[in-house]
């Protein structure tokens, strides 16, 4: 399997956007089998979150589309893991 197995994204989320719903929507994206949203910083209007998605063949475009549609803003891709074995 050579697809993406893990993605760690740095995302800005509007403060009142329910993260539970965002996590549920991300979990439905193609190839995603698990989602973790860790809020790292809370500001007046936005939250900075570290979003980790895992699966056997994660479709990055599908993940990005879910974030876009919700109103979140992808700042950077901090980590990407591929291959038979997840390193680190």
């Amino acid at each position, binding site marked *: 399997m050579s697809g993406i197995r893990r993605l760690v994204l740095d995302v*800005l989320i*509007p403060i*009142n*956007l*329910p993260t539970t*719903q965002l996590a549920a929507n991300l979990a439905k994206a193609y190839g995603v089998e698990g989602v973790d949203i860790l809020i790292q910083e809370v*500001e*007046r*209007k*936005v939250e900075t979150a570290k979003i980790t998605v895992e699966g056997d063949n994660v479709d990055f475009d599908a993940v990005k589309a879910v974030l*876009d*549609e*919700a*109103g*979140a*803003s992808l700042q950077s891709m901090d980590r990407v893991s591929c291959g038979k074995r997840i390193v680190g």
Partner: protein
Amino acid sequence: MIAALLKKEFKRFHYYDAITGMSKILRRYFVMNSFDGALTTFGILLGSFIAQVQDPVLIIHIGVGAAIAVGFSGLTGALLTERAERTRELQAMEKALHRKLEHTDYKKAYDFASFTAALVDGISPLVASLVLLSPFFLMDFLAIDISSAYFSSFGLALTAFFALGVFLGKVSKESMLATGFKLLLAGVLCMVVIFIVEGF
């Protein structure tokens, strides 16, 4: 199938409410504008009663006309002010996120909130007015004379004021009786002023 659709819509409403906090605004608009509509119609009915208007059709025409006007005032006023306010909030959010929010759930939630607020703002005074006018609509059906219709409407008006106050008390978790009586007092005061002014 309908149950599933309703469940989906209810979920969507909750999602949008979490984003915009619109249920608080809707509650406020509902009470404020129902009271507005009820008080306007109450004033028209009191004026007609003092002027000894005996034609129910005339009262219905005047009352419905005023109700539609108050409803339109609420609808357009809320639509414009809410939209302006929401656009400002959205622009501030776009700045904080460094992106445009067109075609996002966030934008959809804000549009939905503006539209629903306008709808509540427009419909609530209309419904309140029509409820107060209902004895005049139902005069033939209930076989009552014009005086009974007037007094039934006054009774309905005072009940509506009290009920709106009770609802406010429930929302603010204060004494429901106290807030009920406060709004009732406002209605009674309005009645006294109308009687004093129109009496001369």
